[in-house]
């Protein structure tokens, strides 16, 4: 089949896409905003970026691939990329995506490789946005009926996969000449390393989580997800060690139930208040360091529901009482 670019001038194709491009740009931005919000609400640490395909890049792809109808067939005109720390987070991203888009095609790049092949990794999804996210009722931007019917491509990578994708692009595609065989072999070894790295990280996480002493600190990990709704500052795990074991023992339930039985109902009843607090302190360099720690949510919950036991047993040898008193001031409780 002859390429459409061959039948018409590439300038006509460029002009046609230039006219369409603002809609794809708007779609990419809309998806970026909704995903950023919903991934945060789901407690998934992630970096979301988006773009509409550049006109030059679009024309080159049309030339390269020989599409009959490039405007209809090129799927990544609106592109969104989500990078997550761990491979097992990829599935959580997909769960969130299914809430806002219809997944029309899913490509797990690893599945496409034979057992003795190494290559590009990650998950690619072809998406059609659900009507609610194009509506003002969706809470992100005004009504955008002009975006209905458009498609977007979403790439989900672990950090290691993302690093590989960036480097491989430079090593494999940018050099003006074909790479020598031994360089290609070295690059292949790097891909293997990415697979190994992600696999080992997941395996080690499971080993650590099966440690019986992990239960108390697992509460902190669970709280990380909740805290993400209010702040994206990364917590200091060593600081958490100073108070989380003490705080967890203030509850009359197993550590594994603290969040669901106490913290979640507290968050449900205080969502707006906490959002306002975190907004007010976001740019305050003198803010209480505990505020951006996961244990802040335990402290706030106990200040509201059992401030006396909290104060009585506060680990003053490790954390000054002034820190607790300031947390009480922030949430409006007199201790």
């Amino acid at each position: 089949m002859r390429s459409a670019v061959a039948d018409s001038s590439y300038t006509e194709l460029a002009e046609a896409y230039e006219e369409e491009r603002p809609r794809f740009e708007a779609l990419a931005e809309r998806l970026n905003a909704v995903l950023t919000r919903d991934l945060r609400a789901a407690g998934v640490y992630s970096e979301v970026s988006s773009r509409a395909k550049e006109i030059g890049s679009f024309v080159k792809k049309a030339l390269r691939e020989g599409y009959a109808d490039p405007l209809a067939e090129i799927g990544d005109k609106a592109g969104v990329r989500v990078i997550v720390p761990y491979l097992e987070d990829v599935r959580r991203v997909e769960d969130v995506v299914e809430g806002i888009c219809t997944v029309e095609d899913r490509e797990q790049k690893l599945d496409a490789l034979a057992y003795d092949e190494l290559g590009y990794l990650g998950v690619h999804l072809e998406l059609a946005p659900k009507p609610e996210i194009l509506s003002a009722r969706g809470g992100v931007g005004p009504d955008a009926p002009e975006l209905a019917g458009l498609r977007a491509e979403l790439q989900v990578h672990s950090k290691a996969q993302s690093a590989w994708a960036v480097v491989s692009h430079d090593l494999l595609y940018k050099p003006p000449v074909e790479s020598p065989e031994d360089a290609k072999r070295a690059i292949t070894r790097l891909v293997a390393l990415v697979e190994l790295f992600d696999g080992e990280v997941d395996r080690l996480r499971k080993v650590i989580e099966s440690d019986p002493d992990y239960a108390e600190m697992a509460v902190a990990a669970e709280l990380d997800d909740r805290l993400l709704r209010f702040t994206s500052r990364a917590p200091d795990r060593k600081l958490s060690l100073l108070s989380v074991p003490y705080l967890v023992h203030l509850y009359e339930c197993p550590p594994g139930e603290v969040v669901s039985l106490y913290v979640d109902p507290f968050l449900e009843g205080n969502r707006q208040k906490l959002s306002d607090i975190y907004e007010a302190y976001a740019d305050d360099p003198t803010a209480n360091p505990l505020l951006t720690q996961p244990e802040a949510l335990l402290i706030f919950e106990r200040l509201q529901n059992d401030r006396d036991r909290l104060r009585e047993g506060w680990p003053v040898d490790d954390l000054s009482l002034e820190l607790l008193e300031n947390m009480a001031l922030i949430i409006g409780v007199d201790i």
Partner: protein
Amino acid sequence: MDLGTFFVDQIVVHDVPRNSTSTTPEDITYSDAPSELNAELRNFFKEKTTQSLGRHGYAVEHDPEQSSPVPGLTQAILADPAELVPASCDIARHLYDSQPAVSNPGLLVAMLGRLEGGACLGILKLEREDAIRVEETALPGGGKTFSVAHLRDLMLGKHTRLFKASIFRLPGADLASLEGFASDDQRGYNPTTEVATFFLARFLGARLRTAPDVATKTFFEVTQSWIESKVDQPEKKARYEIALLGEMNRQAPAISPNAFANENLEVGDRQGYRDFLAEAEAPTASIEKDLKLISAKVSRLSMRFAESKLKLTGPPDDIDKFVTVNPEDSEAAPVEIHDRIDEISGGG
């Protein structure tokens, strides 16, 4: 009111001199614009205000008997934030006019902010040392304002004496709905009137939301009801009852339900007690003590014993001093009276 939902958006500072024969209203230094703020300064003033109101605050409301212009000016600011500067100048002028000659020079700080999601106005009076001045900042288009960063440094450096604080919101359309909190850190719990009359009445045009005698009676009765219904052990019941009567008879002009809980109740009982007060709509903020309605009830304490049906009655202070109530499972007798018999007489 949930003070944890209080946030500061804008601050205007005016410098109000001592009202004496050597000063006139022309000596007031007015700001011509809100002071420059950043998150750190906003939060500093949020926390200072919350600390004062949370610890010593009284629930207050508009007092139509007072002629103070402050409620009307507060209403104007809450209706139109652009009124913050001009209306707060009038508030500063009224502070000068209403304060007694003995009052120290002070800084009037008007804070426009949010409380429970709605607009609110905070009014602080910080008394400063005579020699201390807050840095002025010239505005590009003329006029001046004060450096709130410098004011914060003075407060941290103890060059200001804290402080009379108040916060108001207007949930309804007219002044009758004006409500808030007011506190006076300087006066502590010692003076005969907790919030200085001039500050609350003459300056703010407000009054305590619940009359002190009613608030005191409600606190006393709800606390007794909690002891009766929620405390199981007789020894603990007696201890708490004695503590309550001790609180009522103490030579202090105010009661803080929170401080009462912290000082007298076991750790595990305090939260339940506070929740009980809140559910019964009893005061949880400070109360100006007035025993008028319960004087007979708090002057004597009675104990009735389970088996003998004997009854011990006396002033709470004497019972506290001479009677020991032990847990029933202790080696000592459940009740011990430490005294000598002075007189025995036959009855009937």
